[in-house]
């Protein structure tokens, strides 16, 4: 968790990740939630700069008072600890109750011939259930950062080997672009993280939660260059061991000039993100200065 930038990796070392997976095979996640809330989160709040960006997020973006912002900063970090624990619990083979809202939108596109995009964000816990929106006809090609820790990539590989999800890793050379283009031409589903500008020089500014913020141009360019349908897929924690997947179509006018299409798509994406954050304000996990 950093102040101005994001390292592009899951917090902790490989040994810690392996230990977590092993532990979670035998104990209930709720025990670790409690341990994290009492012993880990307070220490993290003292040591990490993330408390400042989270506090500013609640003060400036949600207009909370000082006391409420401090409390929700703590709750936000506890929730973050829980979703990380849940992620490793999933790697350990545990399952969660998952509800889907808007499944009909996914099914309508999944049963068609054309490829389409999933846009995800670092809110809730996309990884735990976003890829469970499977399709017999289409493979989900998940675009992921190449900087992620080897242990996390290995766990993802193990988990995805049982599903129809493949990973496309963003690389320095242009090989990932060919994989994305080929996947689109094959009619697959491309899953993009859409709220971080890692490794991308081109960004778009959009009004988001009352202030201008930068988003990577890539996902919006890819969608509009081939007039693809786009879904926002956000997976929010709605109970101790429950998640709800919200599938929302992002509508843009494909007959408009390309620039207008991109503006419409970005506006639809940020509106959906705002809708989720107003409902689940403590599930925002971009722990860096997102609006500057």
């Amino acid at each position, binding site marked *: 968790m950093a102040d101005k930038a994001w390292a592009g990796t899951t917090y902790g070392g490989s040994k810690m990740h392996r230990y977590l997976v092993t532990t979670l095979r035998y104990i209930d996640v709720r025990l670790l939630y409690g341990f994290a809330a009492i012993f880990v989160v307070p220490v993290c709040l003292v040591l990490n700069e993330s408390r400042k960006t989270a506090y500013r997020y609640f003060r400036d973006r949600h207009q909370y008072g000082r006391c409420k912002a401090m409390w929700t900063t703590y709750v936000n970090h506890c929730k973050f600890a829980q979703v990380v624990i849940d992620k490793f619990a999933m790697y350990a083979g545990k399952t969660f109750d998952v509800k889907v809202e808007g499944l009909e939108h996914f099914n309508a596109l999944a049963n068609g011939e054309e490829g389409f995009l999933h846009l995800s964000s670092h809110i809730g816990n996309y990884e735990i259930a976003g890829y469970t929106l499977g399709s017999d006809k289409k493979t989900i090609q998940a675009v992921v950062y190449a900087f992620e820790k080897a242990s996390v990539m290995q766990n993802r590989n193990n988990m995805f080997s049982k599903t129809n999800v493949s990973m496309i890793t963003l690389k320095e050379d*242009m090989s990932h672009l060919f994989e994305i283009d080929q996947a689109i031409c094959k009619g697959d589903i491309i899953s993009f993280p859409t709220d971080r500008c890692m490794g991308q020089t*081109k960004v778009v500014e959009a009004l988001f939660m009352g202030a201008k913020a930068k988003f990577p141009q*890539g996902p919006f*360019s*890819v969608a509009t*260059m*081939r007039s693809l349908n786009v879904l926002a897929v956000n997976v929010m924690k709605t109970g101790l061991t429950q998640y709800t997947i919200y599938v929302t179509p992002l509508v843009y006018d494909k007959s408009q000039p390309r*620039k207008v299409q991109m503006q419409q798509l970005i506006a639809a994406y940020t509106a959906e993100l705002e809708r989720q954050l107003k409902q689940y304000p403590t599930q925002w996990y971009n722990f860096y200065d997102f609006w500057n």
Partner: protein
Amino acid sequence: MEQLVLTLKEQIIETLNLEEITPDDIENDAPLFGDGLGLDSIDALELIVILDKYYGIKLGSPAEAKEIFTSINTIADYVVKNRTK
């Protein structure tokens, strides 16, 4: 060839929304990426789509693309030799 070079420049300007640039601003031999026109990896994907959409060319590998996308002249040369429409 001159006409093709001009068309390619116009297609690149339109597709990449390079609003403040005219075809005359793009030198035929200048690098498209890095210090030249300053294109990035997503722009490379746009170029891949331009070749597919307008010229029926499907590129096979990143290494091949890197060579082809060196400059407007290298793209034009490749299009002349490989176009299917």
